[in-house]
């Protein structure tokens, strides 16, 4: 009896060991989840990286930064893409659920652009004007120097990091106007502004095709600054921000390889291709 027990135990241990040992020889899976702003960027990174590293499979999903952070808390993704810094409560809940500190990795720079329809004559605004428009204090284009027409507000749903960033940095944590229309993704915002002559929207600079990304002035005294790479990197453009990756615990193994690659010249070149801005000096120093 005892002998048989031992054999069974050994067999079980061997089986377990075999099943554990098997995956590394097969494909490595990495999940990237979160920000819709960073969805294209993540997909391009994954494509290029998988071409050079055939042993690694990267799955990229959007849904919004909030979705990604929720997934990191629940442990359904290894890397969370976020277009806003994580809040302390969120870091705490990752620590509580996953028993690991959050690692924050800035991976790219974005200029949050304010989009107008191409037919709109306005090409610059102050931060104060944008705030008043999105809070519903200004409801007609003529009050900011345009034609007499009602302003139609578009933006992102409240799961979006861009929404939260905009609310914090432009609205100073105030509320959006009642008539603000939240849409499911940045592409939908662009589409709405293209279709609506009186529309205004916001989103990552990487998406700003067929719409006008206006220049923004910090206040009435300073001049308007266009959302270009130099202005975003030098922080002259008032709505520039970092895009982040988050992991539970410090990245190791395959994930560390990916993180290093993304921060290196190849990864940062992809950032430029997609329309975002590479981290300051990253391409020269590494």
């Amino acid at each position, binding site marked *: 009896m005892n002998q048989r027990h031992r054999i069974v135990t050994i067999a079980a241990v061997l089986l377990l060991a075999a099943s554990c040992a098997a995956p590394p020889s097969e494909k490595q899976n990495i999940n990237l989840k979160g920000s819709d702003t960073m969805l294209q960027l993540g997909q391009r990174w994954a494509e290029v990286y998988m071409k050079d590293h055939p042993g690694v499979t990267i799955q990229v999903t959007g849904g919004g930064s909030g979705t990604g952070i929720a997934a990191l808390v629940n442990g359904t993704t290894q890397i969370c893409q976020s277009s806003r810094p994580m809040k302390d409560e969120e870091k705490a809940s990752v620590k509580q659920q996953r028993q690991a500190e959050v690692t924050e990795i800035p991976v790219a720079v974005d200029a949050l652009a304010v989009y107008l329809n191409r037919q709109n004559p306005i090409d610059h605004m102050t931060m104060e004007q944008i705030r008043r428009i999105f809070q519903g204090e200004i409801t007609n284009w003529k009050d900011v120097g345009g034609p007499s027409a009602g302003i139609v507000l578009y933006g992102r749903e*409240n*799961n979006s990091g861009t929404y939260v960033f905009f609310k*914090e940095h432009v609205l100073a944590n105030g*509320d959006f106007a009642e008539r603000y*229309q939240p849409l499911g993704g940045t592409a939908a915002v662009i589409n709405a502004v293209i*279709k609506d002559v009186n529309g205004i929207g916001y989103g990552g600079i990487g998406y700003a095709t067929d719409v006008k990304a206006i220049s923004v002035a910090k206040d009435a005294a300073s001049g308007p600054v266009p959302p270009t790479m130099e202005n975003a990197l030098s922080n002259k453009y008032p709505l520039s921000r970092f895009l982040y990756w988050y992991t539970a615990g410090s990245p190791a193994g395959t994930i560390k390889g990916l993180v290093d690659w993304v921060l290196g010249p190849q990864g940062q070149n992809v950032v430029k291709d997609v329309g975002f801005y590479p981290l300051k000096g990253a391409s020269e120093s590494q």
Partner: protein
Amino acid sequence: MLNRTSTRVCGRGRTPRPRQSEFRIRIDRFGEFFISAVAFIAIAIIFLIFIYVAREAAPLAWRTVDGISIWSPFQTPYMWQPVGGIPKFNVLPLVVGTFKVTLIAMLLGTPLALAAALYTAEFAPPSLREWIKPAVEVLAGIPSVVVGFFVLIVLASWLQDAFNFEFRLNAVSAGIGLAFAVIPLVYTVSEDALTSVPKLYREASLALGASKAQTAIRVVLPAASPGIFAALVLGFGRAIGETMIVLLASGNASTLSLSPFVPVRTLSATVASELGEVVFGGGHYRVLFLLGVILFIITSIVNWVGARYNRRLRQRLFGAT
């Protein structure tokens, strides 16, 4: 029933085999049991869904989760902005939005559906009727996401050009989209109700000298009214819970206004667009389940009131049930 009759037919002429018939009775009983079990399972599933939804919202009732209590959805300001420095969870804009869109859909959809049903049941030549009914029923088979997408991309622009709407997507555009979902349902059920009115009624009316139109409107329509009323209740339930069309076509702004020309956000669309993103078990998550409970209660009340009224209507028309 069918089984028993066939037993009798088979048994005739042959020597009766008691074992066989006993077996058949048993099968019959089993069939009866099986059918009623299925019916009860359906009820049980609905009940369990409600229990689950309510259970997810329940912790709000006895403690605050992330600063949110069961009263948060009913506190001022009347604003739904669940993410931000001070989250605001007032449910009133969503309830108003839901009813506004549903009402518009019913106002636009039911007259059309009823007129079409009356036409096919009473006036259309039989050859045409055989075409119209399946065609309208095909309309019911169009996935709501397709209808919503059509409104979002095409119809909303037409409407804006035609009526000069300030907002491209608004309660009217969503209501028209919803009407596409309501019309086939109301049409089919009320058409069935009209055709099941006994022929005797029509013959009696015509024999008394009434015209075809008089017969249809003064005799057949009242006789079918309980069924038509049931169709309206079903249509209302469909419209109020419909998610995909309103999610795409309503603009989703949580406005508190009675104007039909501003964007609206409905209860169902709010749950759909926000539930995927919230932290599991957090306050926002629980409030979204509470919205589900509210929606469930609204539809239950409507169905219950509808059923009661329907019974009264039937009693008044046909005497004791």
